[in-house]
């Protein structure tokens, strides 16, 4: 698997898209910091970017890579290699290169700006960790979609739909159901609903850092327990790990049974 990872990563590192992605984050980081001169504000803007763009780019990139490396995959399949290692290797190659672009692209401007001397470093690290998780999750989901759809167009369509659903539509439905059932105690429901969407989950994790003052204004005991203690952090991270592991597991499972 490590060898496949190496070659996929190597392959991606030479592809134009990795650089586009990297340069995009680099430019974003510089623009945010040096035009604004406000580290805290930059971190908040970045949060929006990470929550929305990282999943989108990971999904599209994942699907694209999967379809584009079909030949490579077939070449590998005839080699004495385990199927799961072929796909996991490719997946980790994609996710790894995306994460590297993200971390370096954002990290360089922030470090140059003097991040290490600032208190914002924790908020920033949390952002990067969340971004890394989102990359892993959405690349895995993209691979799953691509693996289940031979048709490229369909695969792309589903991938973009998935993103749209998790990034926007889900929250809309979530909000409507909260308003609709507002007479009932809703804090367990709303926390649970958050857990089922990795984007919301990451957002919550960041809220814990940036908006804890507002979150603690709510009366519910479960909210209080969740946001007021380390429970929220631990539960969120556990769920993120679960969100990462499950699609990867399904990927390996499906890959073993697929015909090429």
């Amino acid at each position, binding site marked *: 698997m490590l060898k496949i990872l190496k070659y996929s990563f190597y*392959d991606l590192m030479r592809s134009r898209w990795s650089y586009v992605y990297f340069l995009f984050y680099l430019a974003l980081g510089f623009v945010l910091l040096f035009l604004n001169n406000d580290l805290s504000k930059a971190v908040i803007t970045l949060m929006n970017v990470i929550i929305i763009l990282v999943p989108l780019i990971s999904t599209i990139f994942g699907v694209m890579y999967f379809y584009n490396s*079909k*030949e490579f995959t077939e070449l590998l399949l005839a080699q*004495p290699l*385990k199927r799961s290692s072929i796909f996991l290797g490719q997946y980790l190659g994609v996710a790894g290169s995306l994460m590297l672009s993200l971390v370096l692209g954002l990290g360089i401007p922030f470090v140059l700006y003097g991040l290490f001397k600032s208190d914002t470093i924790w908020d920033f690290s949390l952002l990067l960790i969340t971004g890394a998780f989102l990359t892993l999750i959405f690349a895995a989901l993209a691979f799953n979609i691509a693996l289940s759809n031979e048709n490229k167009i369909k695969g792309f369509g589903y991938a973009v739909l998935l993103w749209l659903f998790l990034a926007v539509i889900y929250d809309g439905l979530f909000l409507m159901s909260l308003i609709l059932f507002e007479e009932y105690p809703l804090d367990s429901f709303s926390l649970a609903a958050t857990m089922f969407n990795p984007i919301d989950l990451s957002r919550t994790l960041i809220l814990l850092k940036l908006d804890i003052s507002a979150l603690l204004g709510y009366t519910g005991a479960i909210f209080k327990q969740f946001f007021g203690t380390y429970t929220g952090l631990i539960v969120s991270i556990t769920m993120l790990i679960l969100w990462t592991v499950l699609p990867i597991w399904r990927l390996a499972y499906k890959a073993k049974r697929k*015909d*090429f």
Partner: protein
Amino acid sequence: MIQIENLYKKFGRNQVLSNLDLDIHGSGIFAVLGPNGSGKTTLIKCILGMVVPSSGEIKVQGSTIKKNWKYRQEINYLPQIANFPGNLKVKELIRMIKDLRQKDSMEEDLIKLFGLDPFLDKKLSTLSGGTKQKVNIVLTFMFDCPLIILDEPTSGLDPASLIKLKELLLKEKNKGKTILITTHIMQFVEEMSDEIVYLLEGNIFFKGTVEQLKSKTNQTDFEHAIAAIATQTSDA
């Protein structure tokens, strides 16, 4: 070498292979023939483990291939379409495959044989179809394995390279290897193959030498014999 028992494969509602039994042993060149959609490629992919059979058992060198991948160490496979990751250079591709298989290889002679030297530093995406096929052949023959599977090996090759390929095949056969070929070029089959496996509607319709086929169909010409098999079926 290869034993197949009760092999079934369905793609959705489409039954591609049904109750297929096949036993291939000893050295020689075995041509897998059949009309389009008869299941040739599926059969080969089943042997390679790329397609998972619905039921039945396949054994390669005595051991079942189910949940097994190490047996592919002993197989060289030439895929039908020579498509490779475009970002890699020829040299890197060869190095990568060597790295993945961790086996002694003799790619240098083959590169010389097919005159690929000037292309070694080119990216695969810039190569022509014929050159890609040559690279494909180099990758297939550079390891010393007892079983060689070739899916349409002649496609895109110029006559000179075709002759070199034939020489290569004979050389390998003489080393006592089992070679499985699918092709649509009957002349190539007649010239090269020791045994023919004729697939029809997902099952083996005929297995034997060219001579046996000719006598069975009462034809003197091989191509006519093949065509006659198809008509016999429709009669039956």
